[in-house]
């Protein structure tokens, strides 16, 4: 995990998926694990496997840089960010996680004509050398098809 120089502003985590960067409030990233620790057997529907954290196991998903769910993650996805949606967590594979501060003025809502139903992107943040897409765990969970209430999702790790 890289850590950007300290600056003012709220703390965010930036998850990198190839050239695509996703931004979430840092508090919504519950844990960061190595992708090697993901158990690939019997993956959840639309997912790639399971990760065990704090005596529970959570479904893990992967997205392409176009934010399309993929059952075959790219080799660059070496980390697994555990994201929270209320009491339900899920893992998202990513290349890198950066924790940084973002000035709220650097974030602008997604223009009307760029909005697609089901898109996880709610806003755009400008950062040096490009942009990052602001999202939420809830939107990502809908994108990957995580069931609203999945009893199997929080089974105790064997």
């Amino acid at each position, binding site marked *: 995990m890289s850590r950007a120089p300290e600056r003012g502003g709220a703390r965010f985590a930036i998850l990198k998926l190839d050239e695509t960067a996703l931004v979430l409030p840092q508090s919504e990233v519950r844990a960061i694990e190595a992708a090697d620790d993901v158990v690939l057997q019997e993956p959840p529907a639309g997912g790639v496997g399971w990760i065990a954290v704090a005596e529970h196991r959570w479904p893990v998903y992967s997205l392409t840089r176009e*934010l399309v769910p993929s059952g075959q993650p790219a080799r660059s996805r070496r980390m697994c960010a555990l994201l929270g949606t209320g009491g339900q967590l899920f893992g998202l594979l990513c290349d890198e996680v950066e924790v940084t501060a973002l000035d709220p003025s650097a974030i602008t809502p997604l*223009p*009307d*004509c*760029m909005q697609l139903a089901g898109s*996880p992107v709610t806003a755009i943040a400008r950062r040096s050398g490009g942009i990052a*897409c602001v999202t939420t765990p809830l939107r990502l969970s809908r994108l990957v098809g995580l069931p609203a209430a999945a009893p199997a999702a929080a089974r105790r790790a064997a």
Partner: protein
Amino acid sequence: MARGQAWVLDLGSGASAAIGERELVLLLYDAAAFRVPYAPPYANRVLFWEERALPVLDLPVRAGTSSVGADTKFVAVVGYLRDGDASLQYGVLPLASPPVRAEVDDEQGCELPEPLERWRPLAVSCFRAQGVAIPVLDLGRAFGPSA
């Protein structure tokens, strides 16, 4: 007879459209735009201008007359009013060449011809210049949510 000024835009792929003279704000060459995933194919890039993220709209793709954005080098920053919102909004239109100023009068007004029917949802009117029908854009609709 009423006269008005317009800018005729070369949108590439053989498409042209016009906007009001006050709607053109700035012309840039080879400006960097950034791709946004999970966005419509006609509006999947943003360009930063004066601390704003402006949508880059490929109008022929939006109108359905082309499936891919044209190879364009110029971009026009345009300003418009959105329905129910008094504040000026901005967007970006890629252009194949710099816009051309045109003086238009009532006699040039025409119906949107059948080959341009797909522009109807984005156009407020149409006029002929040198024998060519040119739709006049409603930028609020063009940059608005897709139907």
